[in-house]
């Protein structure tokens, strides 16, 4: 029996770790509620250059089992269990800090370790402001913990926080392929295929040859079809699509196709054009619906009174 108890003691941290892979039982770093944040070179200076990152300790995490302060650092590689050379140490959160369950860490964008001018060797010549690149830094955290109590030597394991990916993305998405235009009444429907990395499309129209492209619709669904409405019938329009990625980079526009919206007639228009006398509206029957509603009430109340 004694060996069984010892085995249980040895296995218990492993069991706890096995139960803790989800973010519900992990310390989390998030920006804007997400575990990934993409930004462009507009974050290299000005008010966007500091990122306020939220750390959260879920209620399922027992802070008393965390034995050392939570070290927080930035890396251009993978997080691992501890800070490495060329990583940038940011701060450490004590057990007292962690008991508050949430707080903020401020990160300076130009000092991320993905940039050559950050003070650490990023292994590249990318600086904050370089165009056409995508680099990923991670905000990491780890502490020692033990479910047996911090004074029991030999049973401490590493508790890793769920990292936050900070992605410097100035690489624009590829141009979409504008495959066709469908003509409708005051509407043109563009069908398309997008390149990888496209998060939304700007569908733009302009009277043929004008080149202004001042009628614009944003398509975030990317279903393969986007509708440009409110166009004038019998006027030819040039249509093009501009891709936008998650960081906000606009790519090169698609090719231009030209089409002319045309008037069409649905059933009601056909009916009226054919001489139909119906004007629509409910004026002839305003009393009937309340009467039907009253009948329903009478029937239902009668049903309830049944013994």
């Amino acid at each position: 029996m004694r060996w069984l108890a010892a085995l249980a003691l040895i296995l218990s941290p492993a069991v706890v770790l096995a139960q803790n892979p989800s973010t519900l039982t992990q310390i989390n770093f998030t920006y804007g509620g997400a575990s990934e944040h993409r930004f462009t070179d507009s974050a290299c200076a000005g008010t966007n250059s500091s990122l306020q990152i939220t750390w959260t300790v879920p209620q399922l995490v027992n802070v008393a089992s965390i034995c050392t302060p939570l070290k927080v650092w930035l890396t251009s590689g993978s997080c691992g269990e501890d800070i490495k050379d060329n990583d940038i140490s940011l701060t450490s959160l004590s057990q007292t800090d962690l008991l508050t369950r949430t707080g903020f860490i401020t990160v300076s964008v130009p000092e991320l370790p993905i940039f050559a001018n950050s003070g650490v060797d990023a292994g590249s010549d990318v600086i904050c402001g370089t165009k056409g690149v995508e680099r990923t830094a991670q905000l990491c955290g780890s502490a020692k913990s033990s479910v047996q109590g911090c004074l029991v030597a030999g049973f401490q394991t590493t508790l890793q926080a769920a990292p936050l990916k900070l992605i410097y993305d100035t690489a624009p998405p590829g141009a979409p392929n504008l495959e066709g235009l469908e003509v409708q009444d005051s509407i043109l429907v563009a069908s398309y295929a997008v390149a990888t990395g496209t998060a939304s499309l700007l569908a733009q129209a302009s009277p043929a040859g004008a080149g202004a492209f001042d009628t614009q619709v944003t398509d975030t669904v990317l279903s393969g079809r986007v509708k440009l409405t409110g166009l004038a019938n019998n006027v030819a329009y040039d249509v093009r699509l501009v891709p936008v990625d998650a960081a906000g980079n606009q790519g090169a526009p698609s090719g231009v196709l030209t089409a002319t919206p045309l008037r069409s007639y649905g059933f009601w228009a056909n009916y009226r054009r054919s001489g139909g006398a119906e004007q629509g509206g409910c004026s002839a029957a305003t009393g009937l619906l309340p009467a039907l509603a009253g009948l329903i009430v009478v029937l239902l109340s009668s049903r309830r009174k049944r013994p």
Partner: protein
Amino acid sequence: MMVRLLWVSVVLMAGASAAQEMKVEGASADGSAGATPQRFALEFRLGSFTPLIDREAALQGNKPYEKSFGVGAAMLLGELELSYQFFKAFGSLGVGISGGYAEKYGKAVGADGEPTSENTALQLVPMRALLVYRFDVLATRFRVPLVPYAKLGFAATYFWNTKGNVLEKYDTVGRGLRLGIAGQFGLMLQLDFLDQRLAHDFDVDVGVNHSYLFGEWNIQEVNNFGTGGLDLSSRHWMFGLAFEL
């Protein structure tokens, strides 16, 4: 042809059932032992329905319904009806209300009359308030599980028309309410004979006294009592399932 076959099969089933021994353990001779009170009927029915829109005199032979949806295009109609039986002697008399939904999609046409890529739809919500008579004497007294019935009453149909999934407007907006009168004449096949014990349990446990399959002929004049405008009248068959509660 299909309809005729259906009626023949209904009559054959009824005849076969009448010849059956109807005694069931735990039930009286009329099958009503332990039966719960019966006051209501709930019906669900389906059918196809072609509104007589194109017969409107003002259209002068033009056929906008046919032009939009095709020749003889029928709408699929589903309806629910609840009735209260207030008088039971030689048959039952009740009042009921029903509501349903029907729709038909087609293609809008261009100025040249050719179909375009845009959809157009006519959607209807037919409602009725009806007086219902069921001649259930054959079933209750003579064990013939057939119940002829007739319903007469007022009809109101709310309609709306869309093009490209938005309400269509052509000098006026394509929606409104049309009133009229309606009659339904049908025959119900009482299903209790299939399994008397199950029918009895269904009554005692759930309160469903009888279950029926039915077919009915619908005649409705929904054209604001002949005053003109959109004519949503029709002649059509409906088939469904009914429960007396």
